[in-house]
């Protein structure tokens, strides 16, 4: 009888521990966009091919937080086929580094409404074979069963050893704005 009591207590603890792993919900309209702005030419590239997970325990997103997201750079579309090729082959070198990856954790959560939090994430961005520590701020909005994640931030191409084309027909800014708007849902 006592043994059954122990089992019940531990099962209860286990259930209430609420370990939550969430995957990117690929059925949603996910968006990853980069924006390059120069006085001569501005353009942007988009893809919906983001994947990865976010993990936390309990109600607080910072509790045992882990997250990893990756974007398939081969899927980036700037609207011009040959510009896509040029960008992927000569600058991003996607045949060597097909993914932009971010690995980190939520270090701060600040409630801004009942279902929305402003979060700060520390982690490492890996692009073009170069890893760099960055801190990113964004929001996470709970609309069960999904969570919507939105963020934008700027990266410098030189930080990732991406050479900027010097010739006149393709102006790329040294500072690239990344905009992410995507959804995660509890793993099935």
């Amino acid at each position, binding site marked *: 009888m006592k043994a059954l009591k*122990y089992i019940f207590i531990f099962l209860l*603890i*286990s259930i209430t521990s609420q*370990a939550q792993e969430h995957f990117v919900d690929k059925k949603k309209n996910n968006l990853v966009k980069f924006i390059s702005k120069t006085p001569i030419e501005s353009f942007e590239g988009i893809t919906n091919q983001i994947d990865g*997970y976010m*993990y936390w325990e309990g109600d607080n997103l910072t509790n045992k937080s882990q997250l990893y997201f990756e974007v398939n750079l081969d899927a980036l579309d700037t609207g011009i*086929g040959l*510009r896509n090729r*040029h960008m992927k082959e000569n600058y991003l070198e996607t045949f060597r580094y097909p993914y932009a990856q971010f690995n980190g954790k939520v270090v701060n959560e600040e409630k801004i409404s009942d279902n929305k939090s402003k979060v700060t994430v520390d982690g490492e961005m890996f692009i073009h074979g170069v890893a760099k520590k960055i801190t990113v701020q964004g929001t996470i909005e709970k609309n069960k069963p999904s969570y919507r994640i939105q963020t934008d931030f700027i990266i410098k191409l030189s930080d990732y050893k991406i050479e900027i084309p010097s010739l006149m027909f393709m102006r790329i800014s040294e500072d690239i704005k990344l905009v992410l708007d995507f959804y995660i849902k509890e793993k099935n």
Partner: protein
Amino acid sequence: MKLILVICFLLINFNLFTQEITWRRSTENNEPKELRLFRSTQVINLPSAETYEKGDFEYEISHRFIPAVDEKGKFFGLDGPANIRFSLSYAPTHRMTLTVGRANVDGNIDFALKYKLIQLMGELFPSQFSIRFGTGWATNFPSSQRKLFDSKNFQFYAQGIFNTLYERTFGIGFVPTYLYNSNVYSLKRYYSFTLGSYIQVYLSDKWSAILEWNPTVTGYRNKFNPVAFGFELDTGGGHFFKFILSNSVDLNTSHFANGADKQFLKSSPSFGFNLTRILK
């Protein structure tokens, strides 16, 4: 007994609290990649096996200066006159390209369809094979004896295009070409079968050197086999400048495939260029 139970439950809970991440990369959304070997869809006069990406439009304007580079008073031949061709291409799919062009030689209008049939994603020698069909139509034929739609004004050709690229640097291509009605000026119908080949060496992300040769294997040929040498400047975004020296001053395939007037190396070549730009 109690101790065993406690240890078991502690282990269970330890596993739960140190849960391993189960996410794994999915490949379901990764579309099959199109193999890209040569950067441009055209080498000099011969095509590469490349096609554009779906929805792309490309405009081309090319010149072949008729005077040789050493002709006096012609500024390296650049004073002209020149053969000129411009064209517009469109890609309805990733693998198909349609082209319409016009050259000032006989008011020649040309149509072409290129389709990429096979791609082999090898590590050492990735390769691809395309086919190309086209026609040339001499709309300004210098004879009052022929009407606009006279069948002798039409030339037809078919090409197979094999490309491979070694170490992302050495591009090699073979282009067997069959041309019907090779000599549009003749009353007799000739054919030509040529075995074109080229090497393109990518020297940097912008510059490459090209050598192209189109020998006639059988059938009609003008005096000599066309040879061309030049450089390609890839400025990004689908803009290519090609600067060439050649013994041929022809531009469209149905003219180029029937040979050249001058012998390469034994007579001075003529200067030419191709400019292409994606319109979007």
